[in-house]
């Protein structure tokens, strides 16, 4: 049997609720409803799931999805051994067995045929057939499936199938409002509130340019990076350039505008 303890979230993650999402998640978990967390990158989706796992005291198994992932990467496969083969569970199977919260991060990155394997786990059946092994797993009563995705990518290739979407309850996340975000940045890094507020202001500038040359604005995560650098003694203007501007754009005009915003804010 897999060691359950290794999946337990040990330390309380810092999570600042924006609205009533904690209570709603708890209700979903009580009824073991599958949950989908939508929102732009770096707005706290993964942190939220981690926090909820900790709060509910359940193990959490996270899978970062990617294009090359196949169904057997999720479910499990036979491995060769000296005198035969051995079945090894994939993360989804493990979670279903031990009663963990299975978190499939950025689900749209996975190939669409891969995502279909989660379907039987997400409806009333709550089973996972391992056809290669000839086993039907009935999910542990504590098991829950959570997926996240970023609807910001405007492309017709990367979208969830309706049949997948309609199996989940959903949270729509967004960047928190300025005051709250400043508090989050300050709490997370121990930076001074005034600095955090200025960082958030610059973040706002970048977010306002979304769609005008920027695909995504500056995420809360990047703001935290910037605050961390400042806390470490880096000059604020340099820290912002490094953490907020350079990562998100190569467009010279946008870069210059953001640099100007930084200078104007930290003058």
């Amino acid at each position, binding site marked *: 049997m897999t060691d359950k303890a290794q999946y337990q979230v040990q330390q309380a993650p810092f999570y600042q609720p924006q609205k009533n999402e904690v209570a709603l998640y708890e209700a979903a978990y009580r009824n073991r409803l599958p949950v989908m967390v939508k929102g732009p990158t770096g707005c706290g989706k993964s942190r939220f799931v981690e926090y909820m796992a900790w709060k509910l005291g359940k193990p959490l198994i996270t899978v970062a999805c990617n*294009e*090359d992932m196949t169904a*057997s990467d999720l479910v499990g*496969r*036979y*491995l*060769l051994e000296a005198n*035969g*083969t051995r079945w090894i569970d994939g993360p989804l199977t493990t979670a279903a067995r031990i009663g963990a919260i299975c978190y499939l991060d950025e689900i749209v990155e996975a190939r669409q045929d891969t995502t279909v394997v989660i379907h039987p786990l997400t409806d009333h059946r709550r089973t996972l057939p391992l056809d*290669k092994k000839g086993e039907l797993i009935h999910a542990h009563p504590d098991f829950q499936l959570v997926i996240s995705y970023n609807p910001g990518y*405007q*492309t*017709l*290739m990367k979208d969830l199938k309706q049949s997948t979407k309609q199996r989940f309850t959903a949270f729509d996340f967004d960047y928190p409002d300025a005051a709250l975000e400043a508090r989050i940045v300050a709490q997370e890094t121990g930076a001074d509130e005034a600095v955090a507020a200025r960082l958030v202001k610059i973040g706002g*500038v*970048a977010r*306002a*340019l979304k*769609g*005008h*040359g920027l695909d995504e604005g500056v995420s809360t995560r990047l703001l935290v990076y910037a605050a961390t650098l400042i806390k470490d003694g880096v000059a604020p203007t340099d820290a912002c350039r490094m953490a907020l501007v350079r990562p998100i754009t190569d467009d010279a*005009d*946008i870069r*210059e*505008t*953001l640099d*100007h*915003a930084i*200078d*104007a*804010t*930290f*003058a």
Partner: protein
Amino acid sequence: MTETEYRHPLMAAYWTRLDTRFAQVEAVFDDLVAEALAVLTPEGFAAYLEAGRVIGKLGRGVEPMLAFMEEWPSAAKAVGESALPSVMALIQRMQKSPNGRAIAPFLQTVASVAKRLQSQELLQDYLDVTLDFMERTTGSIHGHHTTFPSPGLPEFLAQAPALLHQLSLAGLKNWVEYGIRNYRTHPERQKDYFGLQSADARAVLQRERHGTLLADVERKLDLYLRGLWRDHDHLVPYSTAFDEIRKPVPYYDKLGIRVPDVYDDLVVAADTGGEPVRIRGLDRYRAVLAHIVGHRRWSEAQIADNWSPFQRMAVEFFEDCRIETLLIREYPGLGPLFLALHPKPSADACDPETTSCLRHRLAMLSRALLDPGHGYVDADLLDAVQRFHAVMAQGESSTQEMASLALSYVARTRRASDQFAKIHFADTVVDYRDDNRQLWKFIEEGDEEEAFDAQRKIEPGEEIRGLPPRHYPEWDYGSQTYRPDWVSVYEALHPAGNAADIDRLLAKHGALAKQLKKLLDLLKPQDKVRIRYQEEGSELDLDVAIRSLIDFKSGATPDPRINMSHRTSGRDIAVMLLLDLSESLNEKAPGSGQTILELSQEAVSLLAWAIEKLGDPFAIAGFHSNTRHDVRYLHVKGYGEHWNDEVKARLAAMEAGYSTRMGAAMRHAGHYLAARRADKKLMLVLTDGRPSDVDAHDERLLVEDARQAVKELEQDDIFTYCISLDARADEYVGDIFGRQYTVVDRVERLPEKLPALFMALTK
């Protein structure tokens, strides 16, 4: 010389030395000599007379001589009299060539040019440019003899001072070079160009100007407005080049924000007396925009009728300072910028006994309101500053409050001399501030709207030959039903034009095409497909291998094909590009000399080229409508065709007219797309306005119909995506297309935007 008139013997001697009989010269000779003697050294004066004599003997009439006699002393004053030999050398060259006619214009402007250049080296450069110009544009037959005069030279010489006012010498050289290169063999065009009559002469002039051109930084400023201020408007340049007397000032109205077309970098002495500060043109633009945004955010128009011009001016100064204080609160970095651009009038620069000092007082006050280290000591001023800060400490304050502060300040500091005609202007103009026209409303003038007649051109419809119409229903949102067979769509092959036009457009965007190609290469390997059951492959296929092993262990013959490899499969996307060809496409895109139609042609050509490279099946069609009985659907490219000359010819012939009945066209395009076998079907709709038609009086009707069409297409698994060129599209495009749209707000960037957008959509 008339016998009776007395002439000073010295003057008479000079006159003899000049050795001329021109009566016009004689009439002004005394004055000329007096002026020349004041400026020139004795040697210089002798050379001046001698040169005058030579020019008089050229046989070109009185004009060149008179021009020289009048102009040279001031030219010599500007660049030194030692420049004379090189000027004379050029005149000799002109004389020997067929360009003698140009000597007069040359001499008439040489003084202004010299004054502008202020150095002998630069003047020499100018002479070289002129000589080079002359030699290259003077006509020759068989390359031996120069026989025809240069057509553009006199024009050029006449324009030279104005040109140098805006261009550096290097810029002038480029401008001349452009003209010579393009119009050497075309005398009439050459004249137009060098006389600044042709459009490209002005365009090239604009490009070569010194300083920061609005056109170059427009996007940055747009991003600045959006990003830092959540504001957006058209930036409309006004020219600072041709208006010498009244300098235009930035302002804004409902058509956009007016800013100068160019700002030079500004070097100002630092407050602390250290290194002078250099303010980039871009930052000057930003200061203007920030100031205007401040007005838009916080200012409230006041009724002006009851206030005197002085009172209004004071209110404006106070209000400007209020909004700038608020702006600085928002972004502290603006403080140093404003202060650097704000004049710092010295306290005693204006004499109140002789001059109206109101402007001066207000400029000082304005400085003091913004600059804590102003150093003025006037009691009224300090009191006003203190009251201003007290009000601002409460919050944002208001235009009203500023007005009452301003009125009491004006009342307190009024002087009789404020009425004087002589007004102190020096150091009182804050050039990043707008003219505050939005701050005032006048009751008396009334606010009648501008009446304009919507002009709609309805040409007599030409007979459409070809297929019988197809009928489509239209959605009536009022009754939530379809009107069956309501719209007649006539389809036809688009008439053909000249394919070379499109090739030329593509060549124009060569650099962009190269960039796109890089992106395309990245895009091509779309779907990785595993090929299993390979004896040799790139990877072990674990599942098959295990099966083989089990077979092997259990004594059966194992399958040796235990490897797999990858292959990149083709993309399976069918694309339909639907172009709105309504009348409004004939409008000029703001900020560009091209019509929207031309820009669309360029964009579509690039996109078609790109999609052809990708190999996706792709069709292009255009549509317009003239009532529901006549919706025309014009095929430009079919799925079966390649991006070849025939297609290009059709694209080249694209014309705009009539209206936009979008729903019917989308349904018709949809039926073609639905017939394709492809995993993904994408319909791109390129439009510049809301769906409308002459027979649809309810403007929501066709919007709702288009929305319904999008829903129908969705049911057929067709993904529709709209690219709107209408700046006001946000009002309705979301209603039609949901989230599947982009508004391209800088239409002139469409050619690069469209292919990029397509790739992003299908990545």
